[in-house]
Structures are given as structure tokens and as C-alpha cells.
């Protein structure tokens, strides 16, 4: 496209104008907001612990260190857990499963949801009705219940949980994207493409998708946040990683009986999960504000 670069035309600036890559533009603008910065900082801190923690853990996450529920000491800076293992080492080793699984679940849910939503909006008629009825039915299950239903029969497998969390996001994302895409489908440039006989998949990818990228970005952030919360909750209920895994959710579950004697084994992972979700949500809100700001500007 470099051929089209040249002397600037008399511009009408001021309107919210988006250039080449809308996604990068939105992220760039969002990063100028304080809440996005704070959110990313919080999220980044915990994510760093989750990713690099296993390398930094002073002890094995399964080794017996001192008697159960020992208070903090030189050997175990945050004491020991219900089975006498080092809380700090387990905390450092236990975050990456949550982070990775949540990311995969969000990809499944948002990817699938976007596809279904766009197809429903553009296909209209029978396709729309069928897809939306199916999603109505799936919506009747609260997300955690849908996951538990699957776990009750197949058992606590990581891949199943990722898939089911993703599936539980799917109808929700699909509805949002369908709503956004329906507005776009109604616009004249889609009709213009129709009248010109443009191929359908091209209309879908070149006309519809770029025009719902704002809501899609927000959905991705939101679904990632919710994935973390949901997968942590499932682990907390005991249906995620199984002992002796140091997973944060499981860690809270294993040690909550001793919360009065030695709170650190609960407090550390609780704070980590809280900061992770709050950070992700703050950053998402920053993106959402940017997107709606741009939409308002260009109207």
C-alpha cells in the first residue's frame, strides 16, 4: 500500500480516526490510561511470579520441611502447609497451570464465540435462529455448573476443564459479537459489497471482522479474566489439578482448615489470584473505555 502514501490531503481531524491496525491502535491508546497501566502492572507482577516462580522456588514443592502449619521461620519464610511442605516454594511453583489453562480456555471461548456470532449475524434467518437457540440452551447452565457436569462424568482432566470453560464462554461471547456485528451488517457498506457480488467469506473477514474488533478485544480481556476466576474456583473445589500439585486453588482448599493456625498458605495464593483477576479486569476496562471513546468520536 506504500504507493498510496503521499502529500497529506486536507484532513478533517478530530473525528476518532483509526489507522492501519485498529487492534494495536486501541491497545496503544488504552495503555495511556492510568487504570490500564495499574491493571497491567498488577497482572504482570503475578504473571511473572507464575511463569518464573518454578525456577526461583528454593525447595521442592513436595518435600517435607517442617511439622505441618509451622509459623514462618528461616527455613520456610512463609511457614509450612497442612503436610509440612514449604509454603513459599509451593506458591512459586503453583501459578503457571492456572495462567496457561485460563489463556487456552479464553482462546477457545472467544475464538469459537466470535465465529458463531459473526456467522449468526451475517447468515441471518434460519442459521441465526438455530445458533442462538443453541446458545440460549447453553446459557441456562451457569458456567461453573456446566464444567462440574462434565467433570462429574469424565473426571478432573485439565483438557476437559479447558474445553468446558471455553465452551461455557462461547455462547456469551457469541451473543456480544452477534450484537455488534448485526449493527455492522445493517450498514450500507455491507449492502454495497452484497450488491457488487463480493464473496461471502470476504465480506465476513474483510468487512465484518475489522469492524467488530473493538468489542472482540474487550471480550477477550473479559473472558480471560473470567477464565482465571473460573479455573481457580474449580481447582479450589478440588476438581482441578490433583494432589500433590502445588496449584494455587488447590493450595487454598488444602490449607483452609488451618487458616487460624497458619494463614499464609491460604493468604498468598488468595492475594495472587485476586491481583491477577483484578489486574486483568482493570486492563480490560481500560480497553473498553478506549473502544467506546473511539466509537463515540467517529460517529
Amino acid at each position, binding site marked *: 500500500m506504500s504507493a*498510496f502514501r503521499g502529500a497529506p490531503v486536507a484532513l478533517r481531524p478530530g473525528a476518532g480516526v483509526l489507522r492501519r491496525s485498529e487492534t494495536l491502535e486501541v491497545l496503544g491508546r488504552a495503555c495511556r490510561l492510568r487504570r490500564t497501566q495499574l491493571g497491567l502492572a498488577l497482572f504482570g507482577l503475578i504473571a511473572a511470579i507464575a511463569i518464573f516462580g518454578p525456577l526461583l522456588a528454593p525447595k521442592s514443592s513436595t518435600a517435607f520441611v517442617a511439622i505441618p502449619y509451622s509459623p514462618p521461620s528461616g527455613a520456610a519464610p512463609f511457614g509450612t502447609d497442612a503436610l509440612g511442605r514449604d509454603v513459599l516454594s509451593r506458591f512459586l511453583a503453583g501459578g503457571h497451570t492456572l495462567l496457561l489453562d485460563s489463556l487456552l480456555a479464553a482462546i477457545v471461548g472467544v475464538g469459537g464465540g466470535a465465529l458463531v456470532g459473526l456467522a449468526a449475524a451475517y447468515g441471518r434467518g434460519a442459521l441465526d435462529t438455530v445458533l442462538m437457540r443453541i446458545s440460549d440452551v447453553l446459557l441456562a447452565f451457569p458456567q461453573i455448573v456446566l464444567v462440574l457436569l462434565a467433570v462429574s462424568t469424565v473426571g478432573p482432566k485439565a483438557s476437559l476443564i479447558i474445553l468446558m470453560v471455553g465452551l461455557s464462554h462461547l455462547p456469551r461471547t457469541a451473543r456480544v459479537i452477534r450484537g455488534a456485528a448485526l449493527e455492522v451488517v445493517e450498514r450500507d457498506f455491507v*449492502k454495497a459489497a452484497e450488491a457488487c457480488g463480493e464473496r461471502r467469506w470476504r465480506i465476513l473477514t474483510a468487512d465484518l471482522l475489522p469492524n467488530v474488533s473493538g468489542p472482540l478485544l474487550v471480550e477477550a480481556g473479559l473472558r480471560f479474566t473470567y477464565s482465571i476466576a473460573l479455573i481457580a474456583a474449580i481447582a479450589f473445589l478440588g476438581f482441578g489439578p490433583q494432589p500433590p500439585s502445588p496449584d494455587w486453588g488447590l493450595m487454598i482448599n488444602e490449607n483452609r482448615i488451618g487458616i487460624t493456625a497458619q494463614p499464609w498458605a491460604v493468604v498468598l495464593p488468595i492475594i495472587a489470584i485476586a491481583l491477577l483477576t483484578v489486574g486483568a479486569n482493570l486492563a480490560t476496562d481500560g480497553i473498553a473505555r478506549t473502544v467506546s471513546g473511539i466509537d463515540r468520536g467517529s460517529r
Partner: protein
Amino acid sequence: MSAVAAAVHDLRVELVASGADVVDEINFELASGEVLGIVGESASGKTTVAQALLGYARRGARIARGQVCIGELDLLSCNLEQLRDVRGGVVAYIPQDPVAALSPALRIGAQLDDVLQRHAPQTAPAERRTRILETLEEVSLPAQESFLARYPHQLSGGQLQRIAIAMAFAPRPRVIVADEPTTGLDVTTQAHVLETIQQLARAHGAALLYVSHDLAVVAGLADRVAVMYAGRIVEQGSREQIFHAPRHPYTAALLRAAPRFGDAGTLAGIPGWAPAPGLRPAGCAFAPRCRFADETCRASAPAPDLAPGAHAVRCFHASETVALMHERPEPAPPVELSSIGEAALSMRGIVASYGETTVVHGVDLDVAGAECVALVGESGSGKTTLARCAVGLHSQFDGSVTLSGIALARGARQRTAEQRRRLQYIFQSPYASLNPRRSIGRALTRQVRLYFPVGAGEAQRRTFELLERVSLPAATAARHPGELSGGECQRVAIARALAARPAVLVCDEITSSLDVSVQAAIVNLLQQLRAEEELSLLFVTHNLALVRSIADRVAVLSAGRVVELGPTAQVFQRPQDAYTRQLIANTPVLEEDVQLGVRMHG
């Protein structure tokens, strides 16, 4: 003249965020019983001035300086409670869009009663009821309890505007501010609404401030006129002064750009567009579009200059403006109707419907090669549906559409690529019809390669060629639609249609969202292209006056039927059908003596 009802002195409204001026140095007086028209294009600040008369600035803007006096009271030094006594009671507002201005959750009667209860608190409920029913009668609505029990969505646009008028007049205010109250209405309804407002203002001795973009409406209504441009009143004077002897180049250019009934000549557009708040140039804001502009104009803003008869103007070149009025626009290039008789596009017995509602009842229409046929009708007449049937965007119809003698399938997708190529469609809203995420260059090359098996280089070459054809600089290719003005976007839309090298172009209300000065330029462009490329045009519009300047033949559509079809001049001079006559009678026109150049002075 009677007492001054309202006086605005040195008013400035600015944006809170940037401090940029929305309007500035606004001065005018409004006498009791007088009608002052404020004319301006979009973003000229006319609505801001209108609302300031109620001491109100919209969210994000604030009144920064000046005085707004209603009688003895300066609104800008009032507290909120005093302001509320004035708003609706002493100064009433008639909004642009009555559908949006009435709460959908409250009955009509309740919304009317709220105003009276607020501004005449001592009256008993029964008394208020009587007064409301009287007011309904005054605005020619059924004065019935059952009518008052309705919700806004149960009434038509015209009825809602009458409700809004009733709401304004019910508390007997001294000043009425009407903000483009007829914009969304058909000419027939518009004529009735205008008459009602005028009558009521006269009957109650209220001063009327009438804001509009439509020169013809203001010409038929106002005693005095103020012309606004870029947040300033650039010219102010009596109706005769403004329309017969304008002193500001902008006023003169605006008059030359307005389509007229009695004149088939070319419209003269104004290059460029009006700058928005915050983007206005130093010096005279009109300078970039003004042919008289020189260094002085660009360096300093002209102060108001008062001529005899209180005819004020802000221009260093006021004396030269007359020359502009003497000039006659070039006549339209003659179009050779080489192939008359042979229809390029032919529609036979079209019956179109949405679901179970039939909106077009058996229409026959032909467009010959290089001919321009205007399809004129009010909203709901089925004109857009008919146009969309032609291009295959609406496929629920019976009847036949043929292109150069070949019958076309109903839906665009069922037609061959060649058929689609030869029949192109341009939409009403320029912004909506271009993908906001795609650069102009990509949109045009895409279109070229959709129809012609050419390489990327050739497609790009044609893209630049197309931009040139519609008088846009080549650099436009790198821009996105949001960066362009409405007129530029519509040029791009035309270029996109031309990319297909079509035989027939269907233009659906393509100028109705543009300012008059820009509209004229677009119409000229179409005329020129038609002459050069032997294009056939189906020009769909509600604007009867515009048709005069562009069409060879006119088809008048009413309730899904063609009621009159004939050569343009004949339809205008000797309309056969009663509906056409009514349409012509109700269309506000610049008076015949407000003529240009030769006819006026010669």
C-alpha cells in the same frame, strides 16, 4: 417595532475540554412579534445559539461570556431556579426531532401537563386540562382525552411535532426558539407545521427565533435573517437585504448553490467545507473557501460593518460581493440523448413488498441511454425500495427488471458479474456506505479487481485515475473514510461506482445528508460525468427543487405508484396530477424575484 423580547450581546460558548469556541461574538435582538431566521450549514453553531437563548449549553460546552437578556432579565446571571422559571415558561424550545424529544415511557397528556404544572402552578388540574385541549385544537390535533392518553410511538412524526409545538405554546411564552423543527418531515407536513408555528406566534404576539439550514424555508418565514458560518454571525439584515442584496460572499455563494424551481441552470457549489470548532483558521473562517480572500482576510478577522438599514456584515470585501451575484453559473454541458427510445434500464410491473406489506404497486419505469430520470417522492412512497429492486438489494418483488434488453434475476447474487458491473448503486449516507476500516485506495482497487482481471499495478493506476475523475487529490487514497468530509466521502462513493465502468448509475438520495453548498458540487460532478461517460442515471430524491437542475425526465411516486411521468420542464410548469401540484405548492422556494445575475439586474 415593538419592545425587545430578547437580546443577545457578545455571546461566547466554548467546549469545556479544549476551550475552543463553538460560537463567539454573537449579537442580535429579537422584538416581540418578530421572526428572526438563523441560517447556517452543519457545525455553524446555530443550534448552540438557539439553546443559549434558554441559558442552556449542551453537555461538554459552556457559556463563557456575554449576555442573554429576556426582557429585563439577564439569564447568564440567574441561578438555576430562576433559569427553570424562564425555560419553558418565558422562552420555549421546539426541538429538531420530536420523536427523540418526547419520553417514550410517558403519555402525551402527562408530558404536556408537566409544563403547565411547572409554569402555571396555581391553575387547577381541570383548568390545565381545558388549556391543553385548547392548545391541541390550535395545532390542529384532535382535542380529545383519548388522544392525550396515547404514547409517542403511537403518533406520526408530523403529529409529534405538533405536540412539541403545543408544549411550547401552552404556557404562553414570550419567546419561541424553533430549532429546525421540520427537518425530518415531508414537504406537505412541513408546510402545515410552518404555517402553524407562524400563526401561533402571531396570535400570541410571541417573538420567534427560527433556526434552519434551508434558505427557502427562512425566506418564506423570517422578517430578519442572520447567516451563521463557523460560529459567527457573518451577515445580518432584513429578509430583503439578505436575499436580494447579500453583502457577504458566503451568503451570496449559498444563494447560488440553492436549487430553484424556475431555473434549470447549473448549481454553483462552494469548494471545501465548513470547519468544526477547534479547527477554525485564524482570520476570517470563510477565507479558505472564498474567492476574494487575500492576506488581510487570512491574518485578521473582520469586525461587523453596519450598512444603512441595520444590514451588518463581517467581511473586508463586502463591496465586491455584488459581482458574485451578477455572475451566471456556466450552463450545464449539453447531454446528447443519442439512444433515445432504447432503454438502458427498464422496469415493468414492479410490485415490491416487505413481509406482508406491499410498498410498490406496479411501477413501469425506463431510463434511456445517457438519460437522467429523477424518481421523486416523499418518505414511504417506495422510491428507495424501487431503486433497490433495480440493483437486486431488495429481492421480494414481482415484475421484471431488464438491463439493455436482458432480463435480470431478482437478487444481486443471482445476477452475473457482468450484469452487476453495468448497474451500480450509490447510497444516501456517504459514511455508512464505506467500510470505515478500509483505506480509500484499498476500497477502490478492491472494486476494480472485483470486476476486471487486472494486476495490482493497473488497479492502482485506475484508482488514481478515478480519484482524479471525482476531483479528489491522489493522496486521498491513503485516507480512511473517517478522515474525510461528507462531500469527499460521497465523491469516493461515486468513484467506487465508476470503477465498475457502469452503464447505469442508481443514486439514492445521495445529497440529502450534505450541506447545500456541497450538494451543488456533487450534482455538478454527476452532470459532468454523465456528459463524459454517457451514463444513465436514476436519481432518487425527495428534493423537488434539486430535480430541476439535473433530470431530463421526472417520475413522481406516491404511495407506491407513479402518478406523473414526463419531461422535467413540463412536469414543473404544467403538472397534470393533483398530487404533483400539491407537492410543488408545498415546496418552499426562493421567491422568483430572488434571482441571479442577468434576470435580477437585466
